[in-house]
């Protein structure tokens, strides 16, 4: 397993998180927005695992399991919404659904 500094693990997590954030802020396609959110969630999970490994405690992996469950529920609901949006507006632009009916 080696002696990797914890800071390098956290730097990797922050780089991945910031890449996901740049993708989230600059895209208009809803599918890419959801993908960027997944990147950010994975990066947060990586930070938890790194912290858990530094203290050799299982809490890091426990938190990662909860993040995984939350990401699964969010992705399923988000994809169902994407399908409905595509059916209604025939486009995947995040700016089309900007008016409430009435």
């Amino acid at each position, binding site marked *: *397993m080696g002696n990797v500094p914890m*800071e390098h693990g956290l730097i990797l997590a922050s780089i991945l998180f910031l890449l996901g954030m740049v993708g989230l802020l600059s895209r208009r396609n809803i599918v890419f927005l959801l993908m960027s959110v997944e990147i950010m969630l994975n990066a947060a999970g990586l930070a938890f695992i790194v912290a858990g490994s530094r203290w050799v405690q299982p809490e890091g992996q426990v938190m*990662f399991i909860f993040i995984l469950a939350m990401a699964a529920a969010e992705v399923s609901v988000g994809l169902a919404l994407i399908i409905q949006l595509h059916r209604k507006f025939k486009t995947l632009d995040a700016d089309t659904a900007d008016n409430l009916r009435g």
Partner: protein
Amino acid sequence: MTFVFYLAALIAVISTVMVITRLNAVHALLYLIVSLLAVAVVFFVIGAPFAAALEVIVYAGAILVLFVFVIMMLNLGPASTAQENVWYTPRAWAGPAVLSVILALEVFYVLAVSAGERIREEVVSPKEVGYSLYTDYLLAVELAAMLLLAGIVGAYHLGRFRRLIRHRFLEQNVEL
């Protein structure tokens, strides 16, 4: 072993950059799967094999496969790639990229001046994780189960296909 960590980290960062710069949704998803596999290798190297297995099986193997199925079902085609070419200009990502670089420099500085901790060589086995889950964090497990139930019901309800039929006197949604 540290070489494995740095190599897997490099692969994860490169494939994540490829995810956010692709124009085709399916290409971006495949790069995202590669990124998740690289992060799973990192998990394995730093002593969390259970999390590595979960990352591959659940995240890359269920969540992203669901993504791929939905994208294939939407049947976007080359028109979508051309549309992405119009939307995704350098002007769109220049601002967020500059702010993110500033944030990254901040984080690197904070981590560089802190005390040098090292990730220890010991493995946290699945048995310890399972024991901790079902004794210390049992309530959170039950709450996660309720969240997944809400996700199932919500996804079923939102994914139904209803056609609007207009009779003379009343409109009704007919289940297809």
